[in-house]
């Protein structure tokens, strides 16, 4: 039994506004391959009287929080947020996958969900002479957990630092003091822990007098921009900053990148925040680079299946990872490089590429890495 008060839940989440049109489920990338059906879930909650039993609803953990459902709903219902809140009922009872438990505990203890020691957070940057953020420094570079610890994504962080240094922008970072933004914690349904993280990070930003910041990950960017209470801090994803740097001539490329590139829109940049143009502006600003589009691009971009805590969860149908379909779509364009701008997308897509044995035809790269090559 995992009973929730469904009437109260439906009121809080505006589910009574639903007209059962199915636009959410029709666009849901998971609905095709698992039993997740947001429309049906809403209907069950509505007709349940006052109690709904979540027992056995394991498909709630399939949701990647890609926001396709909420961005298309004609009645302003947000099925994604409802799913996140329902996960909360599992979390409250401690009924979560061991991986999730580990990620939550690690975030609580070490400030990252990856079970890595805090001291090692800054190792990737030891030779880069990045100054610590302090008063008077223009930008805070919020690195994020995956770029700090994952050896593959550390390369992205390093490239990004070189680009920003090249553009002569005044920035600093928090080094060991940086803690997880909590984006995935919130999406795993651990609202209490997220609240704590927000409080601590807000205090830190205030104490450091941060005015402007940029992030490596669209997930951190979205958390600070939309999940945190308004704090007056101007937060950008690095692609926005680079696009502006190019436009104003702060950043200039001297090399060439003679390759055909297609761009995979990260959900937390695109569907969540409507940022479609800036990453493309950076790519098309690279001499020699030819940008081609997949059919599913921008608002229709296919999720890589790495969001919503899915980096730690296989989901109920692990046989068909969306990232593999995505690799096929990229291959269909004839592109040599599949570019993205998100640590999670980078990892899931690269993993899928290996799985498809297509490494000789395609490379997965972050925009920062491509740009770094032509400095």
């Amino acid at each position: 039994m995992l009973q929730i008060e469904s009437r109260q839940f439906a009121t809080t989440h505006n589910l009574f506004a639903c007209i059962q049109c199915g636009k959410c489920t029709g666009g849901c990338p998971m609905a095709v391959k698992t039993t997740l059906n947001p429309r049906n879930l809403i209907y069950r909650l509505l007709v349940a009287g006052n109690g709904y039993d979540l027992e056995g609803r394991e498909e709630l953990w399939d949701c990647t929080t890609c926001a396709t459902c909420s961005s298309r709903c004609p009645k302003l219902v947000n099925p994604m947020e409802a799913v996140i809140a329902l996960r909360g009922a599992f979390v409250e009872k401690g009924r979560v996958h061991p991986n999730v438990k580990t990620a939550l505990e690690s975030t609580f203890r070490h400030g990252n969900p990856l079970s890595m020691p805090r001291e090692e957070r800054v190792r990737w940057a030891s030779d880069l002479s990045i100054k610590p953020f302090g008063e008077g420094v223009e930008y805070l570079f919020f690195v994020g957990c995956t770029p700090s610890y994952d050896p593959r994504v550390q390369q992205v962080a390093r490239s990004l630092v070189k680009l920003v240094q090249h553009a002569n922008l005044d920035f600093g970072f928090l080094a060991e003091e940086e803690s997880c933004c909590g984006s995935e914690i919130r999406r795993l349904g651990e609202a209490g822990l997220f609240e704590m993280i927000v409080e601590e990070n807000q205090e830190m930003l205030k104490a450091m007098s941060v005015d402007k910041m940029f992030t490596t990950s669209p997930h951190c960017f979205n958390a600070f921009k939309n999940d945190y209470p308004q704090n007056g801090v101007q937060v950008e994803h690095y692609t926005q900053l680079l696009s502006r740097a190019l436009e104003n001539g702060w950043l200039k490329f001297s090399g060439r990148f003679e390759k055909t590139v297609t761009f995979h829109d990260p959900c937390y940049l695109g569907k969540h925040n409507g940022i479609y143009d800036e990453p493309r502006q950076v790519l098309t600003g690279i001499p020699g680079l030819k940008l081609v589009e997949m059919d599913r691009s921008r608002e229709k971009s296919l999720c890589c299946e790495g969001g919503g805590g899915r980096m730690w969860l296989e989901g109920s149908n692990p046989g068909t990872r969306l990232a593999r379909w995505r690799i096929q779509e990229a291959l269909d364009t004839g592109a040599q490089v599949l570019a993205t701008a998100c640590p999670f997308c980078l990892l899931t897509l690269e993993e899928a590429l290996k799985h498809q044995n297509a490494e000789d035809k395609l490379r997965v790269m972050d925009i920062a890495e491509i740009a770094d090559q032509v400095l």
Partner: protein
Amino acid sequence: MAFTPRIGVYICHCGINISASVDIEAVTAFAASLPAVIIARDYTYMCSDPGQALIKEDIEQLKLNRVVVASCSPRMHEPTFRAAVASAGLNPYCFEMANIREQCSWVHPGSEATTQKAMDLIASAVAKAAHLQPLITRQVEVSPSALVIGGGIAGLQAALDIAEAGFQVTLVERAEQPGGHAAQLHTTFPYMQPARELLRPLMERVDAHPRIEVMLSAEVEEIKGFVGNFEASVRQSEEMRTVSAGSIVIATGFEVFDAHIKKEFGYGLYPQVITTLDFELLSAQNLQVNGHSPRKVVFIQCVGSRDQSLGNPYCSRVCCMVAARQAKWVRQRLPEAEVTIFYMDVRAFGKGFEEFYDQVRTCGVIYRRGNPSEILRQGEHLLVRAEDTLLGEVVEVEADLVVLALGMVPRQDSAALASLLKLSRSADGFFMEAHPKLRPVDTSVAGVFLAGCCQGPKDIADSISQARGAAAAAMIPLLRGQVQVEAATAYVEEELCAGCGQCAQVCTYGALRLHPVRNVMTVNQVLCQGCGACASACPSGAVTVSHFTFTQTMAQLEVLLNGSNHQRKQELLPTASLMAK
């Protein structure tokens, strides 16, 4: 002989609306004690026949020359009581109202302070009443003509009806040709009649009518005046013309929703995705897509309608039947073609619509319940991805032609026209009728009426109905030949006026002009609506508004400021200031 006011005060209980929180007995006694008050009475419903009879009898028997009724808002019953005093031989402007319901009993709890406020309001009304002057209500001639703005099917019909009744009509159409959106249609529902057959006779009759002047490629740029005597400045190419009209019918129509906004459907990106409007043109060319006849056609309903994420929460009312009619057309012309309609709800509410929906299904059109989420490319074809909500399954339906059933949106320039005529618009952006049920063709501006889709989405039949309704309403002032003008208007005391023109700058009715010889401002009593803006703008106090003169207003204020217990007033202040907003 000096004028001696003899005032009667009538206090209404309004059932218990007033009497529940105001001590009526005390108020009546207080009113009777006021200077110049001959009699004060109270009654359950003063607006009822017996209530009015009390007033009339007293006027006759007690020789009252001024009357004050303390009851509801003047918006509610001022006309009632003015008529009552007039029928007893008093000038209707010798009447004053104290609003002790909306401004007192409804907004304050029952208390001594509330009763005191009712007393203050009555005292203030009595003070004004002593200074009231009879005014003469005048009638002005009505220009026996109408202006119809918009030459779509609604505008054409309205113009024709008014002209047929014997009045001159000017029809102003922005485009080079009349006919509006109906002219773009191929066939109509539910009787599959060619749109041309409906529109052409109407256009020909309008064109040939001796009393209709059609101005094409023309735009209304300014409208002055009021019911009975509007003056519109119409621009036609480089020329400006003045058109006078007794009443105006607005029939400016709608815009079709821009399908590019729904990115997930790829309109403009996939050549196989078209709109219901594109389909009309395609029907005329026998439905060829890239030189082939389509084999799999999918219609998507509610594109741009019932969609709060776009700010278009309303149903566009025609798309269900338009898609049904087009689907039937495909089945008839291309019997080999599979036709699917994705819908959320089928709205077949009009006469003959449900029967038509039956025909469309039985001719082989498949209705699938679900609002498609996206359209993807698959080779040369498209995949429409949706949840079939009846199956509870995600489906991908192959299509070589997808038709988006587009909704209607307000015209982008409707805000400009609204400000030109001081019209209201409802939350959806369409022009607002004066009352959603009882006054569906009227606007809040006297003499201005609405016809067709400028007021909200509707089909041809409903547009014609509303057009004929608007035409009939617009003819009322034209048939009467005269309209009453407000007597409480502004006047200028010429010896005080310096002719500076500040009053003319604030007048929104264009009622003030500089006299070319006397060099003072003059008020056009027909155009003036008595709003008082000029009187407050005048630096030398030369402008006065009748019925709201300086003496009358000061008498009221004096009573309110000095007349009663300040302590009690303080208690009432918070709500009183709230009401002022």
